[in-house]
């Protein structure tokens, strides 16, 4: 935990304690960032967000809100939100807590392939889960 909290500013995190805005759709949650960080207009930002979701193979969840999503869908949205920050490092903090309905190491690996992003992805997990990643 301490290691995660001490991460510098240029790290995008996907974590349980960084939830989505509950009253916004997945698309709005993602598009928020280009609007405020990149000062794009709304249409442009929505377009970028939708593109990213399509790339991750989850374009269908664009209009769902947080409570209506499955854990996997929620994870994908959070991941997209982290990716659109375009930071050099991406840390996935204890994916097991978020992805309890899928075999998550392979799921993440598949997403990583689809994302085709530069930069490193790091997964912080409990040591007893290490065996899962060997498979």
């Amino acid at each position, binding site marked *: 935990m301490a290691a995660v909290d001490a991460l510098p500013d240029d790290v995008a*995190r996907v974590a349980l*304690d*960084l*939830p*989505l*805005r*509950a*009253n916004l759709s997945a698309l709005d949650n993602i598009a*928020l*960032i280009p*609007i*405020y*960080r990149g*000062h794009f*207009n*709304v249409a442009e930002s929505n377009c970028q967000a939708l593109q990213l979701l399509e790339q991750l193979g989850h374009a269908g969840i664009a209009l769902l809100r947080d409570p209506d999503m499955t854990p996997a869908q929620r994870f994908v949205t959070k991941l997209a*939100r982290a990716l659109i*920050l375009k930071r050099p490092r991406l840390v996935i903090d204890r994916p097991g807590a978020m992805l309890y309905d899928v075999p998550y190491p392979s799921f993440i690996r598949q997403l990583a392939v689809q994302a085709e992003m530069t930069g490193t992805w790091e997964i912080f997990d409990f040591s007893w889960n290490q065996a899962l990643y060997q498979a």
Partner: protein
Amino acid sequence: MNFLAASIESLGAKVVGWFTVGYGMFAFLAKAGLLLLEPATWNRATFDVVVKQIYFTAVQILHVFLGYALVISWLIITIILSTARDFGLTEFASEMTIRVLVLELLPFLTALFVALRSGSAINTEVALMQVNNELDALAHCKVPPMQFEFLPRLIGGVVSVVTLAGLAGLLALLMGYLAIYGMNVAGFEPYTRTIAKIFDFRIMAGLIAKCALFGLAVTLIPVTAGLETPKKLFMVPVSVLRGMMRVFFAIVAIEVVSLALKYI
């Protein structure tokens, strides 16, 4: 002796608490005001949230609100008119009606209406956002919550209360005319004279300022109360309770001060 010391201490704690709350509120307001001056604030996303806020605060309840204003106005006008007739003070009736309804009662009721409906909702939402770490998530993404979440609510609240109070006031003016002169244009001249006599520049500016302050009170106080919530889910009702009590005190205080400025 011990008892005395204890009560003085508790009094001191209360005073300090009130000062902290007041300071937090005004610091928040100052921050929001400064952000208003920044061009970066005026982007499409903020505007969208403002629009949404106005929709939920004003447009969605417009028909209910206007119906309610209609009934209240009609009742009060009828009461004032019949009382004035009984006491032989008919010439003061129209002025009295306008003063009571348009300047005092309707803005006050509008503020209460918006406070009960939107103020409590805002308080709950902000408290839940705080408890759920949503604000931390926004901070992590470097999305400023002030511009994205709070400022639009303040703007929406001010715009909504000013507009709703204005619409209700216009409706009351119309009702007053109909109640006093009936369905004809004969009373237009004297009614215009009465209106001209009441609404000088000072009164108009005071009315708009009062409504704006009401709008600010019913949104700013719930937002700050929500932000004060400790990160425990069971504290959300307590936060709403505190926030709504402060809103009530603030509304009454604004009304009392405005009356004092006008008539003392």
